[in-house]
């Protein structure tokens, strides 16, 4: 039942996302444009501009928001389960910092070293950034995996992840310092995050990648449930803890890497949505929690995208500010209610 409500909410938000935007298009026209690929007679060439706005801007943006939101939320849930830490999120292992570092290398050093080499390889403009973001995230991921082989405790791994994040940030700081103003601005703009960067073939590629990666996360539901019981119980149940941990981290890290490559570092969704899903469904069984988290993530991302594009803001509000505005109160609420429960006990 709750799933149906969630699905309906997503459908509703999707429709509103298509209807509203900074350019006013009457509802009837939006509907006619949307059905025009199936019934070409519904909407002729009355306004090519409106058709392009719907199909090249609003629809890709909404679809990107749905997939990115779901991916980030699932990734956050995986991290929280592996580390048994409610404050873990996609950024906690330094993976998003890694992709930021990759992008910083391309944006801030372009022309000096990286840009020329990249352009001669044929990766141009923003495509180069996606590649760099994935490469940066994967490099950090590999490092984390190597460390996870060496150290036993989760907390140690977590601390090392945070340290890697700081290290990446420090290098970004140095690069920023050495770069001219306009490049630094470009990097800052990338860091604001946005669902509207992807369109056309890139969007198809993004959605295809996510359609492969998200179901793969679902395959890990069983080991994740076992991990929740604690290492000893899980080991007694026959789980290879190290391998399970590694697979979940790889799955989570890849999801973050891909989303960050296409949308920039989107904050808070990964951290906040699992809590939202837990409080909505009141369960810690990943068989329910994982799809619930994915759907909540999609809904929240659509909602944030809508708020960021409210007619009054004219697209000036970065998605990251909105996700934080929505995410921060959620986190605060969770911690507050937890504290109250603890005291009640």
């Amino acid at each position, binding site marked *: 039942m709750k799933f149906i409500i969630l699905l309906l909410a997503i459908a509703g938000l999707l429709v509103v996302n298509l209807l509203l*935007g*900074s*350019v006013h298009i009457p509802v009837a026209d939006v509907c006619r444009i949307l059905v025009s690929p199936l019934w070409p007679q519904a909407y002729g060439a009355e306004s*090519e*501009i409106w058709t*392009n*706005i719907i199909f*090249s*801007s*609003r629809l890709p943006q909404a679809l990107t928001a749905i997939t990115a939101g779901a991916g980030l939320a699932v990734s956050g849930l995986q991290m929280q389960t592996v580390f048994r830490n409610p404050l873990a999120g996609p950024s906690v292992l330094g993976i998003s910092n890694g992709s930021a570092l990759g992008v910083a290398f391309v944006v801030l050093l*372009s*022309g*000096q070293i990286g*840009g*020329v080499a990249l*352009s*001669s390889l044929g990766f*141009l*403009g*923003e*495509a180069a950034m996606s590649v760099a973001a994935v490469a940066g995230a994967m490099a950090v991921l590999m490092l984390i995996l190597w460390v996870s082989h060496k150290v036993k405790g989760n907390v140690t791994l977590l601390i090392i992840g945070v340290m890697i994040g700081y290290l990446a940030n420090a290098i970004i700081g140095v690069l920023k*310092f050495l*770069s*001219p*103003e*306009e490049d630094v601005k*470009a990097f800052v*703009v*990338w860091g*604001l995050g*946005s*669902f*509207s*960067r992807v*369109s*056309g*073939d*890139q969007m198809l590629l993004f959605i295809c990648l996510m359609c492969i990666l998200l179901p793969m996360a679902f395959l890990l539901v069983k080991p994740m449930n076992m991990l929740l019981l604690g290492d000893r119980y899980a080991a007694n149940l026959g789980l290879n803890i190290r391998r399970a941990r590694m697979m979940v981290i790889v799955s989570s890290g890849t999801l973050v890497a891909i989303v960050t490559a296409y949308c*920039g570092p989107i904050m808070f969704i990964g951290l906040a949505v699992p809590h939202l899903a837990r409080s909505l469904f009141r369960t810690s069984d990943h068989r329910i929690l994982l799809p619930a988290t994915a759907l909540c993530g999609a809904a929240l991302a659509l909602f944030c995208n809508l708020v960021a*594009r409210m007619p009054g803001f*004219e*697209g*000036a509000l970065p998605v990251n500010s909105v996700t934080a505005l929505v995410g921060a109160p959620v986190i605060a609420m969770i911690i507050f209610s937890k504290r109250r429960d603890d005291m009640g006990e």
Partner: protein
Amino acid sequence: MTRIFCLLSALALLCGCQGKKGAGTVTTELTAADAATRVEVHYATGFSVRDSADVRLVSAGRHDHFALVRTAETAVPQGYTKVCVPIHSTICMTSLQLSNFTALQAHDIIKGITGTKNLFNKDILERVDDGRIVKIGMEGEFDPELILAANPDVIFISPFKRGGYDAIKETGITLVPHLGYKELHPLGQAEWVKFVGLFIGKEREANAIFHGIEERYNMLKNKVMDAHYETLPTITSGEMHYGTWHAVGGNNYLAQIFRDAGADYVIKDDETAGEDLEFEKMYALAAKADYWRILNSYPGDFDYEALKAREPRNTLFKAFQEKKVIFCNMKMTPYYECSPVEPDVLLKDFVAIFHPELVEGDYVPKYYRLLK
């Protein structure tokens, strides 16, 4: 005897007064030399100049007032910072300022610049190489020791940036705001060459340079106006970056050049600086624009394929489909380094594209040309 003495002293007094009066007329009466160095501001709104007997009062913006004097002993009015001119050394914080010094052939006065990225001027690069000009680092994060070591008489600053001048202020070096970037009239920005001229004692040269720019600019502008075109080509500007479209406002410097070049800019608001617009908003405005201006620093040869690769939605624009993208690559053209003192050249580049019949057939554009 006393009477004679009184008479004599009265006469002396009279003569003295007359003499003084005579001297006064001499100073207020402009010699030919004074007229050439007198600076009048016609287009720029950011600075003003007022001459009094031996002090020249210059205001930059609303809060900074300078009294330019020839000798250190000269008293200056209250509220004015005394600057002995001509200055012999300075540090430039922007390429707009550099363009003024280049135009005035005064590189020898520059002791420091922020950096050399996208800098083309051979003379400045040579001076940086052999240490006559130091790189002090980016604004807001520069090295105060290097600045102190360069010991400039004044530093030209651009207060719109990140600041970080407090440490320098304490050392007593005069900071002079150069507000050329704020000017909305293309000639207003170029007129700041006079402002720099005042400080380095090259008023005569600055006046002549600006006069030439003004004459060429207005002549071409009038030529476009006199052609009385019934329909003007429309133009859009900017590119999508990471999800938002950065466009110049309808009252921006560049928007004015578009208008003067006989084109109709799609954004018609009163915004002066750039605005970040959502794709759909910009697309609704610019989809049918005849021309599309792009300025970037693309590494390598920019073409329509590259423009498409940067953002697949770029192909939706009419100007893209009809191959009417007007492009300038900052990696290959000294745009910020030269264009502030060449609005006439910028204008001519655009007129050559919009109305080629108005410029000579063999005109070679310097900044903007149609993308091939």
